[in-house]
């Protein structure tokens, strides 16, 4: 079949909402876009373990500690689902990791901010996981089958993350004056980076239009950001803390909250590698990879020896 008719068939499937599977023909750019997006997503899960890992040993109670451990372990799992989905597109796992380590591949810029207090664990669960869920739920219907299936698993597991974060915030807000201050401080620091998680505005986004056409994205960045603000404002009210945005107010006419201008200079600066923790995060990943090399080699050598023994027997 010639390229033109292959392309027509592919577009027909997209229009009819039929999932694309690994062995199906797909345009090179569709494959490339998916590899970029899915690997970036996988890297975000893995790098996202780092800011929270900091607090596992410092969790205030055993209950909190067990939950933090389970959450970080989930994130490792989510990274693995996504790496596997990405590999069905014909790219090797090792290549994906090299691209993360070299800085060629990106991950969500939110993880380049430091976690200074225990309240940050609450704010991350509530806001960062909340924003991630907003992003991820529509991805369960993404046009690429393995990605959509991975997202279904991720979303099922993710809602506990947001609830445990909100519960931490609620406990702090119902606590002493000092604890409530900690919660407010965490909201102050995480609010704007959370809004940035949805990516550049629709006007500035280079990938949105094509990705929507291909059914990889179902909503634009600005649509999802608005949904997030609308959902989160009443939750902040319930906690009794204030979102750090003087322009945030209900717009009766639109039926949505209006909110202030995002500092895009900061966003692009963090993406470029100049956030507070970029270097620390990538160094941590590299050192985990390098220091784990002997384990990978030993396991491979052991497996080879065992299979030789079995063959001889």
């Amino acid at each position, binding site marked *: *079949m010639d390229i033109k008719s292959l392309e027509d068939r592919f577009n027909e499937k997209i229009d009819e909402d039929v999932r694309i*599977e690994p*062995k*199906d*023909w797909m345009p090179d750019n569709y494959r490339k876009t998916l590899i970029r997006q899915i690997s970036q997503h996988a890297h975000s899960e893995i790098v996202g373990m780092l800011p929270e890992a900091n607090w596992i040993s410092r969790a205030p109670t055993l209950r909190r500690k067990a939950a933090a451990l*389970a959450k970080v*372990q*989930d994130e490792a*799992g989510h990274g*693995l*689902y996504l790496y*596997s*989905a990405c*590999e069905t597109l014909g790219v*090797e*796992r*090792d290549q994906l990791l090299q691209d993360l380590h070299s800085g060629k591949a990106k991950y969500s810029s939110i993880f380049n901010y430091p976690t200074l207090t225990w309240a940050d664990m609450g704010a991350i669960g509530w806001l960062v996981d909340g924003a991630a869920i907003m992003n991820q739920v529509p991805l369960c219907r993404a046009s690429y089958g393995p990605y959509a*299936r*991975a997202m279904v*698993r991720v979303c099922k*597991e993710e809602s506990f993350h947001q609830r445990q974060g909100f519960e931490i915030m609620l406990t702090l807000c119902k606590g002493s004056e000092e604890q409530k201050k900690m919660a407010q401080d965490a909201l102050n620091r995480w609010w704007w980076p959370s809004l940035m998680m949805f990516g550049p505005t629709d006007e500035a986004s280079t990938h949105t239009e094509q990705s929507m056409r291909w059914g990889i994205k179902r909503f634009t960045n600005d649509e999802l950001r608005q949904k997030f603000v609308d959902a989160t404002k009443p939750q902040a009210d319930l906690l009794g803390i204030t979102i750090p945005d003087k322009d945030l107010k209900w717009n009766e006419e639109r039926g949505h909250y209006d909110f202030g201008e995002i500092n895009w200079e900061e966003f692009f600066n963090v993406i470029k590698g100049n956030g507070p923790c970029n270097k620390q995060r990538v160094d941590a990943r590299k050192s985990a990879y390098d220091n784990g*090399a002997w384990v*990978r*080699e030993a*396991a*491979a050598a*052991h*497996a080879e020896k*065992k*299979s030789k023994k079995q063959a001889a027997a």
Partner: protein
Amino acid sequence: MKNWPLWEIFIRSKAGLNHKHVGSLHAADEEMAIQNARDVYTRRNEGVSIWVVKSEHITASDPDDSDPLYEPAKDKVYRHPTFYDLPDEVKHM
């Protein structure tokens, strides 16, 4: 460093049901594949049994052959019970 081989993971969610494909992972050998599958795919009681198969051992049909493979079944409606007309008096058959 070469990648560890890729394994396809199948989970039986409870006794009486089929093993079902859930995804894949890398592991050095079958034993590690089962251990990793337990950690990656059954953290919330999703399974009572795990199968692991090296991905390279799976042979898949070619999507381009879909027409010759599946088309012939499409016009054989007489393979379905609803094709046969029965009087209303026959209540269950």
